[in-house]
């Protein structure tokens, strides 16, 4: 583990002494390796290490913590600082129906997460959400949303054959208004950030329905590509938050740091399972500990 590796770096430094240039350099090499193994993007690691190095220089090694533990403490503290100390909630402060748009790469967990959010809105926030699928491409995508949506007691917009995503979005907004729904959750088709046509489709939909939340759904086992995806989606849409899914596995989840670093947007929730109650508010300290391994 990182703490064992740091102990090895510092085992010559006993009792008093400060973290200096030389032992910091060795320690930072270990931290760099740990973060890369955790899938944090290389550029993000470099900038992160530079900050931690600065904070460690001249730091007095005192008290009951070993130098290795002190470095871990500084790294952990900086990780939490970067990832957003306070966990932010879903922004529902808008004229109803508040529109939430779910976006992200193929298979990241958007449809499942839409149902999880609906359950949370119904049970915890006492809201009445309407769910709608804009996914006209994936076989049985609309069936999937209808099934999981109804399973949590949410209304799902009925589908109409041959409709395009822009028209479905308009119809969904209208139905949400007419039906007195407080929130409109829009599930979209998975797409590549480099697919110009599909990214334009998303920009057009956002223009039509003016979402209060645009949530980027990211698979927690994503590797270096997380920065490319996050940057593109954020540049085109100005996302308002991120949801990291499949955190019930053993992926270290460094994508969380990469995405946060590149977009500055808050990670709002974590997907913690396949069932509809597998959603938790983002806990920066837990995610930080896991990245460190």
């Amino acid at each position, binding site marked *: 583990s990182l703490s064992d590796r740091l102990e090895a770096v510092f085992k010559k430094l006993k009792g008093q002494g400060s973290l200096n240039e030389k032992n910091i350099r060795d320690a930072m090499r270990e931290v760099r390796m740990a973060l890369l193994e955790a899938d944090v993007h290389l550029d993000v690691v470099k900038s992160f290490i530079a900050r931690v190095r600065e904070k460690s220089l001249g730091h007095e090694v005192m008290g009951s913590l070993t130098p290795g533990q002190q470095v871990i403490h500084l790294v952990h503290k900086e990780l939490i600082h970067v990832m957003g100390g306070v966990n932010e909630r879903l922004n529902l402060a808008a004229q109803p129906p508040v529109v939430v748009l779910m976006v992200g790469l193929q298979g990241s967990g958007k449809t499942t997460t839409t149902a999880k959010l609906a359950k949370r809105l119904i049970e915890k926030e006492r809201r009445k959400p309407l769910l709608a699928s804009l996914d006209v491409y994936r076989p049985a995508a609309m069936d999937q949303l209808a099934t999981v949506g109804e399973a949590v007691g949410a209304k799902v917009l009925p589908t109409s054959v041959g409709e395009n995503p822009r028209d479905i979005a308009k119809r969904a907004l209208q139905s949400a208004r007419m039906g007195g729904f407080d929130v409109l959750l829009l599930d979209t088709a998975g797409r590549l950030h480099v697919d110009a046509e599909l990214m334009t489709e998303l920009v057009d939909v956002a223009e039509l329905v003016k979402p209060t939340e645009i949530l980027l759904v990211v698979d927690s086992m994503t590797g270096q590509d997380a920065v490319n*995806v996050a940057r593109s989606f954020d540049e085109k849409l100005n996302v308002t938050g991120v949801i990291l899914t499949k955190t019930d596995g053993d992926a270290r989840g460094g994508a969380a740091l990469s995405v946060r670093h590149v977009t500055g947007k808050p990670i709002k929730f974590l997907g913690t399972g396949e069932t509809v109650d597998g959603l938790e508010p983002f806990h920066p300290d837990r995610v930080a500990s896991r990245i460190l391994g």
Partner: protein
Amino acid sequence: ELFIGGKVDEALLEELEDQLVMADFGVETASAIVREAKERLDRKQKKDANAMREALRDTIRAHLEAVEQGVVPSQRVHPWVILVVGVNGVGKTTTIGKLAAFYQSNHEKVLLAAGDTYRAAAVAQLQKWGERCGCLVISQGQDADAASVVHDAFAAARARRYDVLIADTAGRLHTKSNLMEELKKIKRVLGRLDPSAPHETLLVLDGTTGQNAISQVQKFHEAIGITGLVITKLDGTAKGGVVVGLSEKFKLPVRYIGVGEGLEDLRPFDPRQFVEALF
């Protein structure tokens, strides 16, 4: 830009390692590959940056070719059973649709088993793919026993003389032991019908996955024995570099890559093309 002329110094080697890390090679593999490429370069006449680029490509390709396996022989058992497994959302069901079309284009009669009896609309999704390629899909609907569906599909494949049976399974995280047990059960059931089945067990990996791919391969391989990998979503910007370390560690061939969401978007894995796409 990285390779135009110039000499091969420590700075270039570090830069190359960085490039590999950003392609998801992983720190250890990136550094080992660059070291090996440098040794290859040292044995050459020309030692400039361009030669280093060649050495790097040759090294990576060599690692991938070492575990590459030829096309499956045509004299096969009937039905030839392919079990498709992997974690959630990687592209198993879509890959099966593409594989079915691929085998059919070689005049093989393909049957599909809707072994995902868990996720919402999973059976409907596979049925749609079956329609697209004109393949029969054996299913029992949601919450049926997955092993029982696969059992029925095998019986149908054998009775009606199908050439290939492809079994879809529910996505599952490799860390969930009860779900891995379900896979073992499916394998046992197939083994009782034909001791050599499944003849191919494909683990599907998402091309955007980072170092967690190692844990995925490890756990699935330990549980049921994997015979080949499929890397999907390489039509995005992810490079899938983790396969280089995987080939070293597990000696498993990459069979196919997925390069899109359509029926035609499957390619047999070509190490040369893969390396070209890296840089």
